[in-house]
């Protein structure tokens, strides 16, 4: 414990430097805007702004980008409550009761409860992250290729199990991502694969063009400006304080949402989205007045908001400790660290303690910053929503083009972004979630390398995965999850019921 405390002090000495504080602040402000503005989620926001960090050191870069990520969770609640438009997917559940509270004249209180819930959950998440990540990383240092292969298989199965779409559709998207990840030079034999004579494809397809295309451009293509309204009423500062009864009603949902969100966050999948759905369902189930849900129940705002923020923090545990991305946003953050020459994973804490602990400490500060920013400045942020969407999205497209081009100075990357914009649009129409595709793309090189190394180590015997206890345990969990999924597919799926519950509101 003393070591963790000393390391955290080192982290605060890094995070409290004025220059690092400044980038945490910029990340929080940009994240809040990204969360609020329709048509641009945290993934597109981080991808587009990644080139802004190229001139920075790794600590400042990851502090700023992570600030955008958790800042967007805060910002998303504002549009959900005031406009019933979720700025990003995790805020969908907040729309229901948050907007109902706003219609009842309690918009300020809903915003305050959402912000305080997010702060408490985010801080809780960072405390657990501080305690859990170092021992987990120490444990993972003993992993060899078979363990990593099994871990990645488990990650994919978990992703499919937790996905809001069906198991087969999620795995299909992940397979497409894995396939795209094989494009380029084979690192073990030097063969060119599917590069069609295009030199740029020799290095493979980048995560950034694909992510910006699918989640940035694809979203804009499917959102004509006539569908976006901006009739905004900003609450006055004095209306922001909830009543004593509202505080009382929100306390336990925030506590439950924090624990639930963190636990779901460390599991691969769209954790911050799923956690808010499950938290809403849980609060409704245990409420003494379930009929109030949908009509402005405080717990319907407090629980989901706390859960999605805790999940965002929880998602950093596998990334920092194991080098395992749990979702597309984390995958892009991993790519950002790699671009800055810092490989995330078990060796991160020992090899780059300033980056790891500086980042962890900055999350404590970032959460406090967001609380202080979001409440007094809600009126300022809300005014930005008055900018007509028709003027906003051309600007976002310009940033998409610059952002993608500046990563490698490659026009091929920009074309790839445009192609994946079209793919994202089509996937949306056919009801496929593109998140597993990005995840598959990210883990493809690690997965292929560890699988092939395992086979070479064992002289071509698959049983190597069954002979090593950790690999076997991970594969058994994967098999159990697959069986559970198959059983749930036969019966009525809980995700379907959850969706129906949300729809019925």
């Amino acid at each position, binding site marked *: 414990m003393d070591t963790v405390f000393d390391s955290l002090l080192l982290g605060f000495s890094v995070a409290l430097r004025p220059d690092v504080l400044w980038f945490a602040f910029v990340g929080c402000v940009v994240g809040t805007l990204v969360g609020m503005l329709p048509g641009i989620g945290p993934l597109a926001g981080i991808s587009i702004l990644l080139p802004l960090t190229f001139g920075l050191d790794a600590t400042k870069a990851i502090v700023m980008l992570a600030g955008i990520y958790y800042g967007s969770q805060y910002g998303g609640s504002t549009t959900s409550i005031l406009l019933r438009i979720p700025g990003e997917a995790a805020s969908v559940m907040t729309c229901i009761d948050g907007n109902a509270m706003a219609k009842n004249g309690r918009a300020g209180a809903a915003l305050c409860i959402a912000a305080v819930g997010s702060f408490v959950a985010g801080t809780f998440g960072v405390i657990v992250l501080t305690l859990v990540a170092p021992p987990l990383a120490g444990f993972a240092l003993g992993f060899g290729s078979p363990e990593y292969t099994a871990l990645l298989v488990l990650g994919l199965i978990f992703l499919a199990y937790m996905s809001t779409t069906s198991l087969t559709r999620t795995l299909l998207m992940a397979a497409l991502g894995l396939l795209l990840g094989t494009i380029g030079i084979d690192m073990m034999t030097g063969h060119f*694969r599917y590069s069609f004579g295009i030199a740029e494809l020799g290095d493979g397809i980048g995560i950034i063009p694909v992510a910006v295309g699918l989640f940035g451009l694809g979203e804009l293509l499917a959102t004509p400006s006539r569908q976006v309204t901006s009739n905004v009423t900003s609450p006055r500062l004095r209306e922001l304080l909830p009543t004593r009864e509202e505080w009382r009603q929100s306390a336990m949902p925030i506590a439950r949402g924090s624990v639930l969100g963190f636990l779901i966050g460390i599991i691969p999948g769209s954790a911050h989205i799923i956690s808010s759905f499950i938290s809403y369902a849980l609060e409704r189930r245990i409420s003494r007045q379930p009929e109030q849900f949908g009509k402005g129940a405080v717990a319907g705002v407090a629980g989901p908001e706390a859960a999605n923020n805790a999940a965002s923090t929880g998602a950093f545990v596998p990334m920092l400790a194991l080098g395992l991305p749990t979702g597309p946003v984390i995958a892009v953050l991993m790519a950002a660290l790699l671009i800055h020459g810092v490989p995330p994973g078990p060796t991160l804490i020992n090899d780059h303690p300033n980056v790891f602990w500086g980042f962890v400490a900055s999350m404590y500060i970032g959460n406090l910053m967001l609380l202080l920013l979001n409440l007094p400045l809600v009126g300022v942020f809300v005014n930005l929503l008055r900018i007509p969407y028709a003027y906003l999205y051309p600007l976002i497209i310009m940033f998409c083009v610059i952002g993608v081009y500046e990563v490698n100075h490659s026009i091929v990357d920009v074309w790839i972004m445009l192609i994946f914009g079209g793919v994202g649009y089509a996937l949306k129409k056919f009801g496929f979630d593109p998140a597993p595709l990005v995840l598959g793309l990210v883990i493809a090189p690690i997965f292929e390398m560890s699988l092939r190394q395992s086979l070479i180590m064992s002289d071509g015997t698959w049983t190597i995965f069954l002979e090593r206890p950790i690999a076997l345990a991970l594969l058994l969990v994967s098999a159990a999850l697959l069986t559970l999924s198959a059983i749930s597919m036969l019966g009525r799926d809980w995700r379907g019921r959850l969706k129906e519950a949300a729809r019925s509101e």
Partner: protein
Amino acid sequence: MTLRADHIAGVFFIALGIVVFALSGDLPFGSLSSPGAGMMPKLIAGLMIALALAVLVGGGTSERLAAIDWSDRGHALMVVLITAAGIFAYQRLGFLLTMSLLMFGLLTVVERRNVLRAALYSVALTLFAYWLFGKALKAPLERGLLWF
């Protein structure tokens, strides 16, 4: 039989898997003790075909193809075409000209906004982006036809 979204999606992904197999002809599969460059793509393509078959077979309950809302297709197509023109021009005309024209095109052609207002907005925002990326962050932007 009613054609449904998952029928089309299933067929598409099966066809994609077959194309991948066809393109992988010259990539050696190797052996289990010495996997070749073609092993992973072929395994994944096979998995993709199997999953796509499952989507196709179970597609009877998915949304009817005719029920998919394509009312935004005109907007999407115009945005794609104008962005494609912008990408094509980027290294030729440079950052300032291309981005101004890209924004102006989107505002006037897709959004039917006032030409003068759109021009002012496009130039102002492009100059701001130029200052932010090119000057403040010292990112090397394409110069193209202009000298700065």
